[in-house]
């Protein structure tokens, strides 16, 4: 049996040196022992201390290359409180010689065992971040903070930097049975094991904390097992609030029953004079014929003519001067338009703006609106996919488009795409065949059809895109010429 003595329970460098020497000497895992100096481990009859080897030659060093994953794993594993962790670490090191990918084979018995223990170590570290409770003390330098904590694994040194980052401007100490950590505002130091009586026994704010803990608990939702799964009983003795648990649990059913059984009392008399007005009484009438664009705007927000309002954020009305000679009608608001409440501000809007500019049309002279005022879509994860409104929805929304046309009285109405054409003409047009040709409307204005700018965005082929954009701008320029 080969024996190595380590300086402490978490002496990773000592273990690494010894394990390297063992592997160089060909010591089988079953024959290797690691003991911590000062512990009561009795030496075996045939134990042979292994003397420190001379530093290995470069060739030997190459033979000892281990994957970084192993070193990371072992550094955490050594913090586990199990006595046989050194052996597991050495067994993994030994096996790496023939199985260089071993650490990636997480279904392997040894690797799975190591990962399970590492998980427990990480959890202990996480719970330390959660369950350390500082108490305030005063000393010569002013206020300082002291906590007594008993971690299930040896995670003090691994976890202390977290407290350093979080409480940089406080002087604090964390005392544990394994050792202590001290932060004085400048340096983090570690010291000897401590005992509970070295930490303060109380803190005046703790009563507030207990009050909060008790008040935030909902007795109608008792789930003790869930609580214990996350806050194991072993932690309770150092958590001031945990003392309340038995009492809160015992009283919960009575509290809930009283709540449920108590008849609804008379409303508070303050009610009558303090209450804010009922919004839904004052909802604008969506059936009244709009007399101006403001009526259209408020009417659209209250519109229930089709179900599209449900999943949309808001109705999006047209924008532009009341005296506009050109009205441009799109299909419906898109994702961005729905959020911001303004027509044609998204990607298609940018294409339109650029094309208008090239055709010599000032967008601020144009009234821009949509055939359908709410965004029809389908949720797909974190996004919303556009869906084409159906004929019924277009028909329902004509009430608003017709109102806009009646109030603006444009000379020319430019319909972008088939949906806008449908809303304007009452029939589904063949956009590609009919584009650019003037169509007389019953109110004396002229309709012109062209493609929707989002069509340009969807074309995959650059050459086709360039050509489609040229034709689109040509249609716009023709409209501009028509208006003189």
């Amino acid at each position, binding site marked *: 049996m080969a024996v190595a003595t380590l300086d402490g329970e978490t002496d990773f460098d000592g273990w690494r040196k010894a394990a390297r020497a063992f592997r160089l000497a060909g010591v089988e895992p079953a024959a290797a022992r690691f003991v911590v100096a000062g512990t009561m481990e009795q030496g075996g009859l045939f134990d042979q201390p292994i003397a420190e080897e001379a530093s290995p030659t470069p060739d030997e060093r190459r033979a000892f290359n281990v994957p970084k994953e192993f070193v990371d794993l072992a550094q955490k594993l050594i913090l586990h409180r199990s006595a046989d962790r050194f052996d597991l670490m050495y067994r993994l090191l030994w096996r790496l010689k023939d199985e260089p990918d071993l650490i990636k084979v997480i279904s392997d018995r040894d690797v799975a065992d190591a990962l399970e223990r590492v998980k427990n170590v990480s959890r202990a570290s996480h719970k330390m971040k959660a369950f350390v409770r500082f108490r305030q003390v005063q000393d010569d330098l002013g206020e300082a903070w002291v906590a007594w904590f008993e971690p299930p694994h040896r995670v003090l040194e691994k976890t202390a930097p977290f407290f350093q980052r979080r409480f940089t401007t406080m002087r604090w100490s964390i005392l544990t049975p394994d050792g202590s950590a001290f932060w004085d505002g400048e340096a983090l130091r570690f010291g000897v094991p401590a005992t509970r009586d070295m930490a303060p026994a109380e803190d005046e704010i703790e009563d507030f904390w207990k009050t909060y803990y008790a*008040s935030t608990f909902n007795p*109608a939702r008792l789930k003790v097992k869930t609580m214990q799964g996350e806050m194991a009983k072993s932690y309770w003795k150092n958590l001031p609030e945990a003392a309340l648990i038995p009492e809160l649990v015992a009283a919960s059913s009575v509290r*809930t029953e009283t709540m449920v059984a108590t008849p609804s009392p008379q409303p508070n008399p303050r009610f009558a004079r303090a209450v804010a007005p009922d919004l839904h009484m004052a909802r604008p009438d969506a059936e009244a014929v709009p007399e101006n664009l403001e009526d259209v705007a408020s009417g659209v927000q209250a519109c229930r003519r089709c179900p599209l309002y449900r999943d949309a954020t*808001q109705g999006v009305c047209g924008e532009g001067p009341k005296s506009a000679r050109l009205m441009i009608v799109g299909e419906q608001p898109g994702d961005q338009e*729905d959020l911001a409440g303004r027509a044609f501000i998204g990607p298609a809007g940018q294409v339109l703006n650029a094309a208008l500019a090239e055709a010599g049309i000032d967008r601020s002279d144009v009234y821009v609106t949509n055939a359908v005022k709410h965004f029809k879509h389908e949720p797909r994860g974190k996004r919303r996919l556009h869906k084409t409104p159906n004929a019924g929805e277009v028909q329902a929304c004509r009430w608003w488009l017709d109102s806009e046309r009646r109030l603006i009285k444009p000379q020319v109405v430019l319909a972008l795409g088939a949906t806008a054409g449908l809303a304007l003409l009452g029939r589904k047009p063949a956009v590609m065949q009919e584009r650019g040709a003037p169509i007389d409307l019953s109110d004396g204005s002229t309709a012109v059809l062209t493609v929707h700018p989002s069509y340009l965005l969807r074309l995959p082929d650059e050459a086709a895109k360039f050509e489609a954009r040229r034709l689109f701008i040509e249609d716009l320029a023709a409209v501009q010429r028509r208006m003189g």
Partner: protein
Amino acid sequence: MARLDLRRKLSVLADAAKYDASCSSSGTSKRNSVGGKGIGSTEGMGICHAYTPDGRCISLLKILLTNFCIYDCAYCINRVSSNVERGRFDVDEVVDLTLNFYKRNYIEGLFLSSGIIRSGDYTMEQLVLVAKTLREVHDFRGYIHLKLIPEADPKLVEMAGLYADRLSANIELPRDEALARLAPQKDVGVIKKAMSQVRLGVEAAKPAKREKIKPPKFAPGGQSTQLIIGADGAPDTEILDRSASLYGGYGLRRVYYSAFSPIPDSSSILPLSKPPLMREHRLYQADWLMRFYGFSAPEIGEGASNGMLDLAVDPKLAWALNKREQFPVDVNRAPREMLLRVPGLGVKAVDRIVSVRRYRTLRLEDVGRLTRSVAKIRPFITALDWTPGGLTDAADLKARVTSRTPEQLSLF
């Protein structure tokens, strides 16, 4: 004496805030107090500092600034017509409590909400003032979650986003009709517009590639909302459709589901019964399936009956029992998306399987070491030395995989 008053207020205003299920303190930008004048850090993963016997975690100091309110929402303990004891914190009292709790490592930060007093603008201003004081006077770098008062001026929402990690406006009721009936002063359109503003703000704060000047911060922890379950008649499928629409529309980090809980001094128009906790649990599971497992709301609905999720089995199992023709799945070959659909396989287990099968062909025993319980999974997979045979199509499969009683026992 003054201290006693403050403790009483804390009790009233914590009690008043506890029906909001949100507690998360994760997912915000990383920062710490090194080099600062104050305290506080956020490192990605949130920390739950305590758990109460209702199984919920305490991560943040969750309180109302005041529980006086001019609204009359039937489901809310703080509605104007309720006889509940009222209280109001000063801005400094909240700031001191937050710092005192934080220094003792009780909390990750503050979750501040409020009843509506005077107006939406005034109330939001007060909430923003607390956050501003914590950040600017005390250089507090912990987590702050502010409740949005949807009616407030967009400028105040902008300020809130500057100081807070997370913002939330609660939709509260899955059905708009119910909101109009039970919360006559609230308008779902106004709530949605506030959520839109937050999404646009969060997106605008993300620096574009190669952008030299960083845009000002805006709610780096995103936004969330809450739906109350069981106060209106909405079935589960409708609730999940609603959630899908909210996730897609407003980039929410979370939708919280809160089983309607009997409240003291409750309104007579609401159900007075124990909260439907199992239903809430199933909805959370379904929500997880939508966010991490590639399920759509309609797919989950396929496993429901009359719009309600099965309370006896989890929604993924319910779906799989209906879709047995898609099973068994070969753990050694199936794409990740299909492994995610195997009942009993979580995201972590799937990632482990995908990673290890590059080096080894998996046996059932190996799968067992990569997952929590192989017994539940067995009927739905094949491995090198395992095929479920007729088990996948067995008539009593549902009973076999749910043999353990789901009822939880009290340990006291």
